[in-house]
């Protein structure tokens, strides 16, 4: 097992992650290192699947986006969540073909956005806080007023 996977395994058993499971906020669905698939519960009870690449964890932030485990691809447009301007700025299917969420916590999205650390300091990756930062932000958005369900 590589060091990044060993730390990830530790964090998936940590109280901060298990608390989210106990609150039915999220669950771990599968692991095919460095990819992990999570189920995230939205405020309407719908489960969205989030596939993250944890290579280099926890020094490097994860990257990834919504996923359809049946088709093994990014969800079709009619299964993609929609919402207000704040929501769709992050869940932007046009960005990276839907393979990365457009937010500073995402490794790929952060790349090249040199102003984001100053603009969004609360959304900067903190290795000591680990993976609950990313999935917690996705859960927050899917449970905010700005989430309006799916288009389909």
């Amino acid at each position, binding site marked *: 097992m590589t060091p990044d996977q060993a730390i990830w395994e530790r964090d998936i058993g940590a*109280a*901060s992650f*298990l*608390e989210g499971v*106990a*609150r039915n*906020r999220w669950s771990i669905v599968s692991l095919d290192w460095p990819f992990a698939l999570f189920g995230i519960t939205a405020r309407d009870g719908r489960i969205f699947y989030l596939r993250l690449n944890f290579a280099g964890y926890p020094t490097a932030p994860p990257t990834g986006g919504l996923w359809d485990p049946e088709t093994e691809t990014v969800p079709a447009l009619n299964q993609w969540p929609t919402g*207000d*301007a*704040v929501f769709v*700025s*992050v869940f932007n299917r046009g960005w990276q073909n839907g393979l990365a969420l*457009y*937010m*500073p916590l995402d490794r790929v999205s952060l790349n090249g*956005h040199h*102003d*984001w650390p100053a*603009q*969004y*300091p*609360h*959304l900067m990756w903190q290795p000591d806080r680990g993976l609950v930062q990313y999935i*917690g932000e996705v859960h*927050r958005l899917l449970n*905010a*007023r*700005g989430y309006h369900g799916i288009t389909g």
Partner: protein
Amino acid sequence: MSIDIFIKRGGCLDVVHRKVNKLDLKKLKQELDTEFGPGELFAEDQDDPVTHDHQFKPGSIFLHHSCCKRIDLIVRYAGKTYENRFGPSVTLKKIKRRAEKKLNIDPADAVELSLQIADSSDRPDEATHVGSLANPPTCSVIFDLVPSDRING
């Protein structure tokens, strides 16, 4: 069948997880007092400490251990303030809802707001207990209600 207990505490964002076969609140409190110093044990979103025979709903149990019995709270928004006192186990989700109501913020009109700790850029998770953000000497915390960011650039 085992019971999952998640314990948060005063002035600290760490979460303690215990798995027990039988809930013994008296013993648990004694253990926490020994580990973290004397305090009271609160059920989540309750203002008063639990008694040793407190009955919980089936499922996981969320507790707070703190020497602060009340947290003095100020929420600032658009030049207005909301002040109140809460038990330390009250979640930020509940506080935000209460503050929005008292500050006459219409949920239908408002963009999503977050509680941000005053003089910082920290926006703790809504499941955070307010007591975890209040250091025991002062037992107080100040928040600003800020809009969620539309990510640009």
